[in-house]
């Protein structure tokens, strides 16, 4: 089964003349780690809203084409049903957290599904272990640092045991160390639980080495899709994308006539290729 399949997906918000996404064809396998990027207003967020049914069930408008998630047609399944398959983490955790303790926050989803108390308990403990939150279980989320809040937000999604996790710029408000920590946690969920990850991200320098594939959107359509090394090597085709500096460096070295091999997306890869070139 495909995790996500979209065919000629087009959505126009109510009251808007032009579609926000247009003729999007997309196929994402279970267990893939995808980075979704592109300039502001390119349709990333609209696409994410289609994945958990916020479109068309909450945001109204005209939805054309087909979209299915874990084999479920998004149009005919409720957001509550879809939420058990797709979890969404927002940019600003402040907008997502509301409980008085971390533990209560994590229990909210399963309780809302009407799960037995014992199952709720089990899931809360499991999610706390996965994100290493046991030490702060009784703390109010609003008192935590941005990095910890974001971990709580992810844990509260995990308690729903979704197959797919969609994260909308989760590192924006974090300092670099916390951002790297969060990205490696997300990568572990992908590897250990075989969870499909769709990460909307501008900070490609930090995120790229974890991803199987980068999907670049521009003006409502998919402008490029492929492994990061391949997509970044065609930098001139990408508009408003923060291609990692080492990838840009290699593209520019080539333009300057230096015959360097490889398309690195991380510092270590770049170092490896440069040493080869310099014959060290």
């Amino acid at each position, binding site marked *: 089964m495909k995790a996500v399949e979209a065919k000629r997906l087009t959505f126009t918000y109510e009251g808007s003349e032009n579609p926000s996404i247009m003729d999007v064809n997309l196929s994402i396998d279970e267990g893939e780690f995808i980075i979704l990027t*592109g*300039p*502001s*207003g390119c349709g990333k*967020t609209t696409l994410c809203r289609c994945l958990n049914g916020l479109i068309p069930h909450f945001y109204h408008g005209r939805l054309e084409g087909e979209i299915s998630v874990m084999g479920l047609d998004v149009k005919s399944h409720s957001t509550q049903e879809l939420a058990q398959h797709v979890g969404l983490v927002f*940019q*600003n955790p402040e907008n997502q957290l509301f409980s008085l303790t971390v533990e209560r926050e994590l229990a909210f989803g399963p309780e809302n599904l009407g799960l037995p108390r014992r199952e709720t308990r089990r899931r809360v403990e499991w999610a706390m272990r996965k994100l290493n939150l046991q030490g702060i279980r009784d703390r109010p989320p609003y008192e935590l*640092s*941005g*990095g910890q809040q974001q971990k709580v937000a992810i844990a509260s999604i995990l308690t729903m045991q979704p197959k797919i996790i969609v994260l909308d*710029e989760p590192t*924006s*408000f*974090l*300092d*670099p*160390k*916390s951002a*790297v920590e969060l990205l490696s946690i997300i990568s572990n969920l992908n590897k250990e639980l075989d969870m499909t990850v769709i990460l909307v991200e*501008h900070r490609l*320098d930090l995120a790229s080495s974890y991803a199987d594939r980068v999907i670049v959107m521009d003006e409502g359509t998919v402008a490029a899709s492929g492994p990061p090394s391949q997509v970044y090597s065609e930098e001139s085709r990408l*508009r*408003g*994308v*923060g*291609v*990692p*500096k*080492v990838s*840009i*460096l290699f593209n*520019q*070295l080539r333009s*300057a006539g*230096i015959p360097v091999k490889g398309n690195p997306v991380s*510092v270590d890869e*770049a*170092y490896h290729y*440069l*040493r080869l*070139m*310099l014959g*060290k």
Partner: protein
Amino acid sequence: MIEVKHVTYTYPNGYTALRNVSLTIQEGDFIAIMGENGAGKTTLIKHFNGLLKPAKGHVTVDSKDTRTVSVASLSKLVGIVFQNPDHQLFSETVRSEVAFALRNFGFDEETVERRVNRILGMLDLSEYAEKSPFALSGGERKRVALASVLSWEPKYVVLDEPTIGQDYRQKERLRMILQQLLSQGKSVIMVSHDVEFVADCKPNIVLMAGGRVIGGGAAEEVLTNPGLLEKCSIIMPQVAQLMRMLGESGVGGRVIDVYSAVESLKTLWRGG
């Protein structure tokens, strides 16, 4: 000139956010304040326009002590754009939001309109002029907050994490705008985690940790100093990391941006 002298600040809950901080900002300075969350960066910039007053030490803006003048009169000199635009925006349309402070400062309607149009164009916001700020994306709202501060042309422009939610194109545009402000003789002070953006801008850097200033200097010096960066939880820019690793081959030094890296690798390739 903004002078911060031996400032200590403790929040009402007892948390001491600044400990004996001293800093001088000259006219025309371009400064980035960096450090991990909780280092005291935002507390420090709130002292620049008197929003917070030092418990010990003093802050002067163009020789005016912030404890003796009103925030309103200091704001005319020092414009602060906060991290979360939602704490700053309140008007029904983007246009009225940007015009608000100008009207408040008593500019005539003709000037208000001219400046508002110019600033909206500069920040790529013209098409949203009649929309509610709250209908815009996070990144767009951030630019509205910046526009509303730039409108009254403060001499010191202070930005808290200006690149959050901005795509690469917007960041490049922001960098041009900052250069433009500097060329007009204004001072630009930004708090930023975005080490790649800072490496492109090349300001002077002030490093903070645990409520203290623990170092600083030119971007090329600070961003290539691993020991200093480690203390502040800052990750070295990619190009600087790479050139450092290649250091044994006799290149590198204080390279933090792609352009200089290409130049030194060219030399190395041709020469070697």
